[in-house]
């Protein structure tokens, strides 16, 4: 048996989480360094996975398969396609920066007793989330995926509810109340989604007799597994609902602004850049792979919802007064693009959507983490409390601007490539939807620049006058992210190479072909 690389990739952060949690209370700094080292080790492993993945090879590679619950045909089955590889790379890349950015976020307050050790918990939870997310990108067994999809909520719940943003306008009690509201809301939304998915998972088992993604997809493709149209549609809706909550798609989005607003900036990045990607990833892999006909049936409705997400999210973002909520609504708009790309059912759209997942992760991380640095300096999340920061902290303002420009998809930065692919892919199939989605680029410019203008430019506010510029640790977070953004914006080939074959497979799953250009069609 070959070396279980995928298991190890997920196991390293999991074991690291346990070790970090076990560090004694007094050795806080050691826990931080341990967590950072573990995340870097995971990054190395992810790089090995990326390197060993052959784009031209089998659809699922590095597979592992062991019996788990024999009575129900549940298997511990792992395997990665190009999409999974890209997202594992994203996750492994972001976590070290999340840890580094949150270096002081969980330092205990002086008043607590010596047995109080939040720091260890904070970093252990982050590593736990990483492990689960990576494993969920690897799982090719529906049941295994479901377990991870749900289990992820637990550490996330504690990260949101337990380690809130210290920059809060109200009193401490008020902050705690809002935080727990946000955490519970996050949990409830996702649990409802998960429960409905559970029903669909069971339904799938009843229909198909096992949980293996590959087997079911194959059986569906060669016709040995027939599904009644209505059954397929119900199962599809069950799965899709859960993923749409996680993604989040309008109108199931309202948990995200609360969660991102109340959580610390690194945790907010974890939510939107990493955990939410599981939702969109699963749409691509499970919804389209298992229920191709139903996916096609639901496409018009989903495209409409995605368009609403894009425009609505952007417009609501413009109206926000809170920096982090603004970024959250911007993310909702971007998730609209991702979902649109997936359901446009064109290679450009789906490749774009996959790239979008990666690029959005990095760009949001850059913007949100810099915003977090800014917020931690001034102790306020309100846009109105800032002004003229550019004058006192030019590097901070500059990096913030680059993050913002990435958010508005400026060519030369990574998100442009993906957004344009999504738009082209959508336009090829649904021209009207493509044009409506294009208005998103204007609105994105609007909210980004309004945010930049109100916080960074203008006369320097009195409270802002003493803000220090970025520190070396913070630069170490921001600079690599920006470098990756620029690199992938100019040379996305390493990613497209692994993603393209996977998308071809997905396209053949749903038996769709790209529309032929008019000129060739005429010939």
């Amino acid at each position, binding site marked *: 048996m070959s070396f279980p690389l995928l298991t190890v990739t997920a196991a390293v952060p999991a074991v690291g989480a346990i070790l970090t949690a076990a560090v004694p209370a007094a050795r806080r700094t050691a826990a931080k360094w341990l967590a950072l080292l573990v995340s870097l080790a995971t990054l190395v492993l992810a790089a090995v996975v990326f390197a060993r993945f052959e784009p031209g090879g089998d659809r699922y590679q590095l597979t592992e398969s062991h019996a788990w619950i024999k009575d129900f045909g549940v298997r511990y089955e792992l395997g990665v396609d190009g999409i999974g590889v890209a997202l594992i790379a994203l996750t492994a890349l972001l976590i070290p920066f999340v840890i580094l950015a949150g270096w002081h976020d969980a330092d205990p307050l002086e008043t607590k007793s010596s047995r109080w050790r939040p720091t260890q918990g904070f970093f252990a939870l982050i590593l736990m989330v990483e492990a689960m997310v990576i494993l969920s990108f690897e799982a090719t067994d529906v049941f295994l995926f479901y377990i991870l999809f749900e289990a992820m909520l637990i550490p996330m719940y504690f990260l949101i509810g337990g380690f809130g943003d210290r920059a809060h306008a109200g009193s401490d009690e008020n902050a705690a109340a809002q935080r727990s509201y946000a955490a519970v809301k996050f949990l409830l939304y996702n649990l409802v989604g998960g429960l409905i998915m559970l029903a669909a998972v069971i339904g799938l088992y009843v229909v198909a007799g096992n949980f293996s993604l590959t087997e079911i997809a194959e059986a569906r493709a060669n016709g040995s597994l027939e599904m009644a149209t209505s059954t397929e549609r119900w199962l599809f809706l069950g799965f899709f609902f859960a993923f749409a909550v996680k993604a989040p798609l309008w109108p199931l989005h309202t948990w995200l602004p609360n969660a991102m607003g109340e959580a610390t900036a690194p945790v907010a990045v974890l939510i939107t850049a990493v955990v939410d990607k599981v939702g969109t990833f699963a749409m691509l892999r499970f919804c389209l792979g298992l229920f191709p006909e139903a996916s096609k049936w639901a496409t018009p409705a989903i495209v409409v919802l995605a368009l609403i997400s894009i425009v609505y999210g952007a417009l609501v973002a413009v109206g926000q007064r809170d920096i982090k909520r603004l970024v959250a609504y911007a993310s909702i708009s971007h998730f609209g693009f991702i979902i649109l790309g997936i359901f446009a059912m064109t290679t450009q759209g789906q490749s774009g959507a996959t790239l979008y997942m990666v690029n959005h992760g990095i760009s949001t991380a850059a913007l949100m983490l810099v915003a977090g640095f800014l917020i931690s300096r001034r102790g306020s999340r309100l846009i109105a409390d800032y002004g003229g920061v550019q004058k006192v902290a030019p590097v901070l303002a500059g990096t913030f601007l680059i993050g913002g420009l990435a958010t508005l998809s400026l060519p030369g930065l990574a998100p442009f490539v993906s957004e344009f692919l999504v738009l*082209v892919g959508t336009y090829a199939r649904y021209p009207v939807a493509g044009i409506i989605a294009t208005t998103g680029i204007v609105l994105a410019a609007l909210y980004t620049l*309004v945010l930049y203008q109100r916080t960074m430019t203008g006369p320097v506010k009195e409270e802002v006058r003493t803000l220090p510029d970025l520190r070396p640790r913070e630069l170490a977070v921001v600079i690599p992210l920006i470098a990756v953004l620029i690199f992938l914006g100019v040379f*996305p080939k390493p990613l497209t190479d692994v993603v393209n074959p996977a998308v071809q497979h997905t396209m053949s799953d749903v038996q769709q072909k790209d529309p032929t250009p008019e000129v060739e069609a005429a010939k």
Partner: protein
Amino acid sequence: MENLIALLVGAPLLGAAVLLCGGRRLDKSGHWLGTLLAAVSFFIGLALFADMLGKGAEDRAMHQRLFTWISVDGFQADIAFQLDQLSMTFVLLITGVGTLIHVYSIGYMEHDERRRRFFGYLNLFVAAMLLLVLADNFLLLYFGWEGVGLASYLLIGFWQHKPTAATAAKKAFLVNRVGDMGLSIAIMLMFTTFGTFAFGPVFAATDEASEGKLTAIGLMLLLAACGKSAQVPLQSWLGDAMEGPTPVSALIHAATMVTAGVYLIVRSADIFNAAPDAQLVVTVVGAVTLLFGAIVGCAKDDIKKALAGSTMSQIGYMILAAGLGPIGYAFAIMHLVTHGFFKAGLFLGAGSVMHGMNDEVDMRRYGGLRKYMPVTFATFGLGYLAIIGFPGLSGFFSKDKIIEAAFAKGGTEGWILGSVTLLGAAITAYYMTRVMLMTFFGEKRWQPDAEGHAPHPHESPKSMTIPMVLLAFGSVFAGAFFGIGDRFVAWLEPVTNFEHGHPPISAGAITGATVAVMVIGVGIAYLQYGRRPVPVVAPRGSLLTRAARRDLLQDDFNHAVFVTGGTHLTRSLVYVDHTLVDGVVNGTAASVGGLSGRLRKLQNGYARTYAVSMFGGTAVLIAATLLMRAV
């Protein structure tokens, strides 16, 4: 030689990267580095130009392919360059004027502590603009297109501590984004129509595509051009963009970036040629903007805004010419180049005046400056003569050709367009004379400012005057050099397929009419501003004047519809999100809570009550079993 093309872009890009990332160590020397790299780019451009001249007219186009940018099954975008005569013209204009303005900025920005960054932005602009004109596919062009937008944003808002500057920068970017939307839709249309968006294959396949698609592509390209080139209805940003430092106004908002729309249309000539409806719209937009900008230019008292109105109007000429098809393309570009010289010169002159006048921009507070700033006066004056089309100077050659071509369009359209261009020429003469008279002639009208600092007008340093002199040189001679013997047309012909237009009246008559209307315009202005003292406080003016001062109420319209409407929309959406979307969920939660509160009462703790429910449940089960059996 082809391999040098990438260096054209690379040199200023390197400059931008070094200057922006380099930190304070470069504060002392950064401006020299920036200027040097712009100049390097210019000399590479010259070398390539020389190489190009050495070849035959038909095989002058050069290509360089660096690497694949985006490649997704059928969607292929390369980082690849194409340098043909059209691009070459732009390269020389951009790097040439760009280098001069770099030099000028050394003096102009001397006292600004963020001068290093200014030069970084300028280099970034040059790189992006070169990318725009050198791209060999529309997506890479879009890259450059957005890049210049970014540079423009950064430079307009360079003095970020001024809220007006920050707002103007944002406005410019946003309005441009609307145009960019047009460009991206155009690219999508090309992809779905042709399966590619590289210049060569697209232009080669235009015969095979339906006219409807081509018209749509053309209109979307026009939308893009309107955004970048400040054409109606997306012109509103240009006036505000004057908040940026004056060298920026000269380089970006007069000579180069704003002409990118013209480049786009001329570059896509093959598409427009096959879509007459789109061409018609292009000419209409050009004609409307031509008059619009001219009228606005007549009313502004801010010297830079008056010049901005003029820029809009002159680009209107170019767009109009570009809409005329093969009879106009070459003249559009020719006017673009000459305009690049004289308008940059005029802006630099204006900058020089402001430099000497404590950054005062109100022309009503100038007056009689010719004595204090002789070099500025001379160069500005030459630029002035060039723009109003004084016979023999460059504006005369290029504008006259456009007017001729407009008449040559033929039919009613030709007459209308011709008359509009003539009218525009008259108004141009009027407002430029007004600027000239108010600034350099008459009595001195400046006063101490609020803090008691009276301006001491003085000539600007050498680093500023030399570029002005060089540009004035260009303003005087470029037109004659290009125009006489149709040299420029012959140069561009392989790219744009020149056709001789045949105006219904003789070319001489048109030239005569042009000169005549110019004289009339100058005369009226002289009567108004030369013969009478200029009031320091602007008179109320006619309804048209007041409207023109407010950009013909276009801004008010935008504000009322988009800003106010948009604000209300976002506010109501935020409210909807909070109360309705979130409210439904919270309402569900509350009703579940209420229901469980009521259900809790059933749990009264009495074992007998629980027994009843157990018993009842059993009864229901039996009933269900029996029913199932009965069925």
